[in-house]
């Protein structure tokens, strides 16, 4: 019986909230309301900004939007993979920067070929993520405090090892790749994001591993009772998050043309807002067990369009942060309202 108690960690509080989210999950499966709502919102804002913000639909701007969507989309998808467990990863930015620095080290100091360095970076990210996961499942502490601590540890260690020096002599192929424009407006970074999204979609929709991750996240206790290795699955989720975070770190370096330790702010905390905005807007459940890959992608598109549009309207870049906070707040409150309505409707039936 003792083994059964091992999976309480990320489980949300039992009670009405579970019922509400379960109902909303069912209903959003039927109506897909999140996606439709997001699509309409995106269309409305594109039209608005197209009319009022000078140069919003220019090629330069669209290209720049596509590049940001690529990077922030991967960041959001990375967070989504760990939200599946009902936990989170504050250290995503730190892992991304650490892995990018690892790639730089492999390329410049070890002189490894590009492909090998990239694989090394992703594995490093996955390993750091797995460390988070292992600590979470063995100590049964909430991932918030675990990743708060490891974020500080990972980032500090990286700075100590690198002496806070970046890598700026990247091979031409890589710096050139960040600047490629396809059809004048599409960055290859966007395609990488779509590829990651497609793989995740496949994972959660069609593979046993993905379904098991969702089941374990939705109700760890029930999953354990039905014989799933919940701990191992959670470690996998955290490792997946780290690996995708590493990809995002490398992508951000490709945009900058150099790998710098400060690219995600102090302790990599600048990634937090984009990381949560995209999946939460897309309808991923914070309580675990429910993901929407296409929702996360659309959520990220929505956020980038708002950011860029407000920027072009010259309302002052500092107010954009306020606007994004309001968007996040509005989205979660809207989601709550819909869940409550869904519950009422399911009771009334």
């Amino acid at each position: 019986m003792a083994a059964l108690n091992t999976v309480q960690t990320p489980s949300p509080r039992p009670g009405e909230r579970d019922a509400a989210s379960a109902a909303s999950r069912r209903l959003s499966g039927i109506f897909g309301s999140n996606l439709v709502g997001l699509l309409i919102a995106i269309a409305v804002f594109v039209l608005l900004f197209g009319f009022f913000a000078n140069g919003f639909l220019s090629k330069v701007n669209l290209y720049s939007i596509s590049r940001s969507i690529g990077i922030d989309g991967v960041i959001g998808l990375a967070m989504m993979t760990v939200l599946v467990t009902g936990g989170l990863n504050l250290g995503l930015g730190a892992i991304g920067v650490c892995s990018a620095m690892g790639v730089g080290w492999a390329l410049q100091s070890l002189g490894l070929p590009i492909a090998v360095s990239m694989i090394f970076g992703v594995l490093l990210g996955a390993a750091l993520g797995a460390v988070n996961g292992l600590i979470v499942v063995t100590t049964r502490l909430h991932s918030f405090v675990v990743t708060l601590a490891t974020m500080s540890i990972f980032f500090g260690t990286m700075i100590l090892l690198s002496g806070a020096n970046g890598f700026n002599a990247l091979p031409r192929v890589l710096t050139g790749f960040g600047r490629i424009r396809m059809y004048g407006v599409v960055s290859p970074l966007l395609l990488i994001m779509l590829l990651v999204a497609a793989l995740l979609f496949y994972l959660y929709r069609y593979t046993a591993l993905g379904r098991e991750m969702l089941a374990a996240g939705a109700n760890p206790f029930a999953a354990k009772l039905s014989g799933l290795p919940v701990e191992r699955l959670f470690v996998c989720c955290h490792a997946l998050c780290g690996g995708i975070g590493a990809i995002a770190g490398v992508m951000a370096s490709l945009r900058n043309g150099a790998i710098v330790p400060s690219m995600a702010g102090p302790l990599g905390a600048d990634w937090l807002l984009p990381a949560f905005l995209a999946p939460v807007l897309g309808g991923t459940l914070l309580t675990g067990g429910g993901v929407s890959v296409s929702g996360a992608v659309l959520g990220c598109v929505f956020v980038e369009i708002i950011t860029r549009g407000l920027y072009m309207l010259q309302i002052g870049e500092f107010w954009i942060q306020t606007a994004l906070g309001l968007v996040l707040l509005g989205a979660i409150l809207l989601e709550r309202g819909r869940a409550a309505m869904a519950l009422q409707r399911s009771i009334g039936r």
Partner: protein
Amino acid sequence: MNAFRRMLRSDSLGLALVVLLGGAALSIARPEFLTAYNIDVILVGFCLTVIYALGQGVIIAIGHMNLALGATGCLVAVSFGGAMQVWGLPVWAAVIFGLLIGMFCGFVNGWLTHKSGLTSFIITLATMSIFKGISLGITEAQPFYGVAESVKAFGSDRWGPLPETLLVALPIVIGLAVFLGRMIPGRQMLAFGGNPSAAELSGISRARMVILAHTLSGLLAAIAGMMSVARLQLASPAIGDEWLIASFAAPVIGGAVLSGGHLSVLGTCLGVLIVSLINQALVMLAVDPFYVQVLLGALILGAVGLNRLRESRMGNAPVLRLS
């Protein structure tokens, strides 16, 4: 034997030992550690950190968290400076204005958390971005320099060997200890943190507790923000940027249980002292400042692990809940 066991169980004994031994070791390794200047540096840092650490502590006590703590402090600091420089308000009015803003920010966090029934993590992530954006927006990332002389003097004056800011920090620490230990709303808050459903069944209002704790946290963040202004002699919109880790580290090292229901004010103070001791030690031993981050992270992990272990030793089934 019983008294001994109780002492072992208390949060503070081990921590006090760590502070004493660490201080002793440091003063042997580096005799200049015990100079008045050094102690002053530690005390000045202590006064600020203890206030925002308690601001996080009261939220941890009800099993929530407040990511917007630093952003609240920042918004208050900036409005405090702006009220004096742009509006020309007298200091007392600016202080009241700042306190009201802080309490309002906290109230918004609490109200939204309660009304939405969502985890405070995501709510305060959103409000963090809102508050921070507002402070950057109204200052355009430039500090206000027009801080009144009396405020500057408060931040830099010494009262004998002690910094004047201790006059604010000490009453807050004592007041909070009395509030949580002896007063009805404080006891109710801890009871609610320990087991919200049981507390609700015994007639404690959930809404009132959540909003009370968050408003208190906003108030403490406001005081810490204005104290930073006094210390820096200017109202910079960068105030509060690096509060997050320390604000969790100190209460957790002090024995606070993240699932709520327990907060030791004395333990938090000792936790702050340990953090500043480490900072100081690494400065004096000329170690890279980034070791501080690694150590702080390791310390948080170690402390929460230890708390968890003690919890299960004491027979309390660990209830994990982070809403």
